[in-house]
């Protein structure tokens, strides 16, 4: 009520425009926070779903390379491809000292015009 006391000459004791604006601002910031929480949770769910699908693709790629290693048809180099909205690619390079094959798998996808990516690295004997 300090706001009212500052203007004692005023006849009208109702809400001033300033008070109304403050009240609306407080209310809308409260609602905004709640709505923000909803959209954040839906975004988190979308991210985890995409990550899960990307990991499935990575597992597939890894199993395929393991299979090639087992059949001794592994070759150094890289390969790229696309499955649904996921761009996958891998690079195989043999380490000169240990003779291990270093395998890098990258999976990238677009979510809301931004690029998300997972990268995995492993060594094959």
């Amino acid at each position, binding site marked *: 009520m300090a706001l009212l006391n500052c203007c004692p000459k005023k006849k009208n004791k109702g809400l001033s425009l300033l008070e109304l604006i403050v009240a609306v601002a407080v209310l809308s910031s409260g*609602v905004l926070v709640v709505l923000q929480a909803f959209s954040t949770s839906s975004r988190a769910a979308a991210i985890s779903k995409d990550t899960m699908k990307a990991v499935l693709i990575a597992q597939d790629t890894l*199993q395929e390379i393991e299979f090639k290693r087992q059949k001794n048809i592994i070759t150094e180099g890289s390969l790229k491809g696309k499955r649904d909205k996921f761009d996958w690619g891998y690079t195989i390079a043999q380490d000169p000292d240990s003779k291990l094959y270093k395998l890098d798998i990258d999976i990238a996808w677009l979510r809301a015009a931004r690029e998300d990516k997972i990268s995995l690295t492993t060594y094959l004997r």
Partner: protein
Amino acid sequence: MKIKKSKGLTLTELLIATAIFALVLLTVYVSFHAGILGFRNIEEEIVTSQSARQILERINLDLRNSFAYSLDDSKFTGNPNDISFLTLVDNYTGDKIRQEFAFVSYKLEGDRLMRLCRLNAEALKEESAILAEEMSAGIEELSFKYGYKPSSGSEPIVFDKDSWQGDAGLPLAVKIKLVFNNSVKDTFERTIFLPQAQ
């Protein structure tokens, strides 16, 4: 200061206040309702991807543990929409984990994915009383493709067969396609390589 006659609220003031309050409540209700609808959608998608992951992981484990019964009959039967084979499964008896052999099959019954698992002595009995168990509902399609090494050509593996008979041994790999159709349609694909296949 002028003294007002009526110090209480007039009916009009009350009506206006109530209307504004109702408007605010309505806004809050609408936003919460939208939130709840969104939550339901998300929950359904999460349940779908979780069961897809669980199913694919289960099939992966069974296939990678599978073995051929004999040279001329591997007991591996692959069809476009169902699959059955012999495998090793972990069996929990009491507090011990034992690996036991089993006959496992996956197929759709309506929109339900059924997994049959006949352990030990029951494994080779065609007329067994053991029934398939439901893994998940809401599945529209389950299909398999079988990978093998062609006798000619340099390709290490091709996936142009949609059925596989037991006398051909084990396939090199199995490509699985799983389509869920609850309220949202979602497709999951995995290729599983059988390290034990010749």
